[in-house]
């Protein structure tokens, strides 16, 4: 029997993206630079997170013409973002034929109580998380890929490491617990019991786990991969740097050979242009933090 858009095909695409770099792009020229540098996928946007942060206002799903032009221009999978809870934006992106939808905290949330019920869609979704409970709630709703949130557009890795370590510690903590104890864990983290049980047995998330939000250098990428990320999303870090093309290639290099400091050093030494200017996340007022959007 032939079945389209099964859970297996959705998580399968996430598996295909492992060991790679997914890059934010705002036009065809960026998309081609990303593809030439070895990106496994591009995220089509109207503005990168650093610009969204600087310009303010309501950030929405990108102009569909931009997304379509990018889909036309590259052969790698194209992702696009919709607002948290905005299932109509997601329906539109699905009808366009994008390969992955990011229900993203980088855009202004459309619903403060409910995320999208992602099982209703044929297209796979990626969602952000800051801890294990949040990851499992999103997977329960149908996310086929998880990324830790970090703090998008900050050029600062501190939140990305915090979220990745929190998720990995959460998984480790479940090791060896009995089912009665797992029920209490499920209650405390507000996550579906069956998924908590699955994580305890398999000692990993049921879907791939990538890192996002603050990666600006090859060493940042290597850090996140060593902390347990299976791929990295780089947003503002590439096209807000001085030389996007060389930086994109260097981050790919460091992601491929993340466990070998000599290779990561080579990737760093090849860089002539400066990294994006970062911001101290501790100085950000709560209302300007993107990671706290969604629940």
């Amino acid at each position: 029997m032939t079945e389209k858009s099964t859970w297996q095909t959705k998580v399968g695409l996430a598996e295909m993206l492992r060991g790679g770099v997914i890059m934010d792009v705002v036009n065809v020229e960026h998309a081609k630079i990303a593809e030439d540098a070895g990106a496994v996928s591009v995220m089509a946007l109207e503005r990168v997170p650093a610009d969204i942060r600087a310009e303010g206002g309501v950030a929405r799903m990108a102009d569909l013409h931009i997304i379509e032009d990018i889909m036309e221009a590259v052969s790698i999978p194209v992702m696009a973002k919709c607002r948290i809870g905005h299932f109509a934006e997601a329906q539109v992106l699905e009808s366009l034929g994008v390969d992955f939808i990011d229900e993203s905290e980088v855009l202004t949330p459309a619903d403060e109580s409910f995320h999208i019920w992602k099982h209703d869609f044929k297209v796979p979704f990626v969602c952000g998380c800051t801890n294990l409970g949040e990851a499992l709630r999103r997977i329960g709703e149908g996310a086929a890929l998880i990324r830790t949130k970090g703090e998008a557009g900050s050029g600062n890795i501190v939140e990305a490491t915090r979220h990745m370590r929190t998720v990995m510690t959460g998984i480790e903590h479940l090791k060896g617990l009995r089912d009665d104890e797992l029920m209490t864990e499920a209650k405390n983290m507000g996550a579906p019991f069956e998924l908590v049980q699955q994580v305890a047995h398999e000692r990993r998330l049921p879907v791939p786990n990538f890192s996002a939000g603050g990666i600006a250098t090859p060493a940042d990428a290597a850090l996140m991969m060593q902390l347990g990320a299976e791929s990295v999303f780089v947003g503002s870090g590439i096209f807000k740097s001085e030389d996007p093309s060389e930086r994109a290639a260097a981050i790919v290099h460091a992601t491929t050979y993340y466990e070998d400091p000599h290779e990561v050093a080579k990737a760093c030494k090849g860089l002539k242009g400066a990294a994006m200017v970062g911001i101290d996340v501790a100085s950000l007022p709560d209302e300007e933090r993107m990671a706290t959007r969604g629940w």
Partner: protein
Amino acid sequence: MTARIGILALQGDFAKHLEAFSELHCEALPVKRPQEVMDCQGLVIPGGESTTIGRLCQRFGVDEAIMELYQRGAAIWGTCAGMILLAKEIEGSDQWRLGLMDIAVRRNAFGRQVDSFETDLTVEGIPDGPVRTVFIRAPYVTRVWGDAKGMAAFDDKIVMVQQGNLLATAFHPELTEDRRVQQYFLGMVQQ
């Protein structure tokens, strides 16, 4: 002696391939440096992005290692992106490839991600009924020539090909529980 199977781990779903082979009688390990590739008796090029894997192969000298492994007579199996990299011809694309198999392929031939699917396929040379197969943004083979032989087709499109020591599948046996395609490849390695 158990065969050493290298899973090319530059990018892609190498972890799923490693899991699948770990259930079988062989030594499977991730390889991403030229010397690691050359130390294997069999090599799997996984699914992933063929342009990315191709660029990384070239950039880090893994392309030459794979060619040398092939010339020594080792068996090589490419799934999805791996099939594209093994093909001599890629329709409408000048992207880099190993170009070892007498096949022409079309990328993303069944459509975009929303058209990805699962189905049951009868595979020539694999007994005991159809194999459950997963196709993800998959290619298919538009033409075979020379010594290449089609082993399975979906909707009249060739999706599995063998040519001597080389095997190519448009689908992903590593994403299901069925290990018959892996067993078939191990048979090729041991010959």
